[in-house]
């Protein structure tokens, strides 16, 4: 099995710096998620690991071998594309077995391995269909099957769930997590969706504008974001972030408090404001409060918290849940 090491990866394209020195270790068997807004360079980084693109400088090691200049096939990786990239002219069986047949494996071995993968992904009934006859979720599974069948040391996923509807997406999240447990392979997964990152990852790498903002487990990032970017990116609704007096009092640039870490009261509290807008989610309500000193403060409260728009309210941060961040 394999670890992935990135050393000082730079990527420049037409004079634009896309990656500005990425250092990263992904451990053997780890489920590592690259997350960040679009244009942060996460897909580029994945393509560099895959060998589809070359880094402008820097080194890549997979399973302790320097693969910086190796072809994709020599890196022991498999990749699942956002568009699935299924070969439209081939059946599901041939799609899954394509790499093996390129490698000139014997027919019965290919068959056996394709069947195994198909079984694992419940694709057996679909093996003789063409991709155009499959649903989105089925195509997704074929794409994963194509990756599994080659027994790679490292799986690369490029936003694999973004073309699915919400229900299917959460189902596939679960399946992928199970798959990871079953295969126990190293997986690198790119997404812009922080929920996917939080729910699936062993390790999250937050990328922003071509550099790594922070690396850590989901909970580390949630509880201890090191930069305002990470603080704002992880968690939903977004953390409330304010510059100004409150932050300065603690020697920081920015003060942050998550909506779920605010206690609301109609009587008293730290900040007084007026409710501008309420979103009812059922179990929770999200309350947007106009606070004179701060601006808009978003808070999460219990679903039966009964307030009305326009009424006055007080919000208090919970002890020890406050973040003081430098720019």
């Amino acid at each position, binding site marked *: 099995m394999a670890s992935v090491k990135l050393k000082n990866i730079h990527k420049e*394209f037409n004079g634009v710096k896309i990656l500005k020195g990425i250092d990263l270790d992904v451990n053997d068997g780890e489920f590592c998620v690259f997350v960040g807004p679009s244009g942060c360079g996460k897909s580029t980084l994945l393509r560099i690991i895959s*060998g*589809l*693109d*070359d880094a402008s400088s820097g080194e890549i090691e997979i399973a302790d071998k320097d693969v910086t200049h190796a*072809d994709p096939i020599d890196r022991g990786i498999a990749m699942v594309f956002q568009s699935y990239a299924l070969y439209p002219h081939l059946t599901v069986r041939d799609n899954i077995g394509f790499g093996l047949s390129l490698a000139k494996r014997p027919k019965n071995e290919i068959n056996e391995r394709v069947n195994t993968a198909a079984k694992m992904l419940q694709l057996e009934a679909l093996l003789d269909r063409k991709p155009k006859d499959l649903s989105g979720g089925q195509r997704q599974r074929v794409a994963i099957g194509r990756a599994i069948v080659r027994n790679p040391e490292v799986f690369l996923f490029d936003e694999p769930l973004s073309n699915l509807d919400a229900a299917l997406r959460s189902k596939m999240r679960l399946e992928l997590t199970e798959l990871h447990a079953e295969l126990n392979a190293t997986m690198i997964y790119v997404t812009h969706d922080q929920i996917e990152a939080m729910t699936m990852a062993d390790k999250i790498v937050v990328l922003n504008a071509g550099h790594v903002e922070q690396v850590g487990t989901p909970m580390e990032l949630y509880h201890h974001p090191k930069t305002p970017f990470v603080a704002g990116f992880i968690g939903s609704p977004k953390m409330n972030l304010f510059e100004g007096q409150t932050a300065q009092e603690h020697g920081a640039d920015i003060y942050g408090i998550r909506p779920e870490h605010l206690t609301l009261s109609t009587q008293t509290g730290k900040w007084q404001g007026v409710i501008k807008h309420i979103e009812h989610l059922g179990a929770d309500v999200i309350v947007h409060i106009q606070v004179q000193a701060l601006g808009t403060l978003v808070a999460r409260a219990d679903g039966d918290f009964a307030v009305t728009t326009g009424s006055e309210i007080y919000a208090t941060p919970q002890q020890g849940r406050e973040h003081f961040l430098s720019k």
Partner: protein
Amino acid sequence: MKSSRSYPYWFILPSGLIYLVLFLVPTVTAFWFSLTQWDLFETRFIGLENYSQFFQEPFLITGAVNTVVFGAVTSIAKSILGLLLAVLLTSGLLGQSFLRTLIFFPVLVSTVGIGIAFTEIMHPARGMINVGLSYLGIHGPAWLIDPHLALFSVALVDVWKGVGLATLIYIAGLATISSDYYEAARIDGATKLQMFFRITVPLVRPATVTVVTLSLISGLRSFDLIWAMTKGGPGFSSDVLASVIYKQYQAGFYGLSTAGNIILFVLVALIVVPLTYWFNRREVDL
């Protein structure tokens, strides 16, 4: 980008080499020959004399005007008729696919054959067209032998032969327009005519660009059909640059006709390149 490794240039080699040797090399040597007096046996360098001679050709202006007229008339007619036919033939008519086949078929038939056949069909007295018109009490025109009409008669046949291809391209173009637009327009209360002008015409633009460009280039260079039908006549009335050049070639003025070729190329480029540029710029605006 690793495109250098994934998309190697040697893919270009096999036929790129053929193209280089059999098309580009002769074309470049032609530039040299255009500066010589050349009777196939000897070349004598005469500088730009061929070019000045070419510009003094008494029927150059006729030829140049005819070239542009022929190119413009045929490409405009093909794109308008092609679009109308395409709309008609995608509206679910009775016998629609048969009609598509019928209209496309002339595209496939040899130009020489068409030329020979239509020269007979357009015979002023015995030809099918005028005989048919006479049943309707119309005295048909003299088509190919009327000097004012000859070029347009050939253009008519060219459109007849080529409109199938234009229609086909337009049918393909129409297929890419989402029916949502028409439904939205119907809800907005647009009439059929409004839909045609407000939705179809603008959205089928890429097909229009293709049709106009392709038929303009072939129209400006057109030779086979004109030669098969009128040989540029009567007199010089349907001469285009390509036939003027060919006649010089036939007469053995090889240097001169090679110079003419280059001038024709420049004319085509002067018309087509800015047009393409303009089309492409407009496309970005959309």
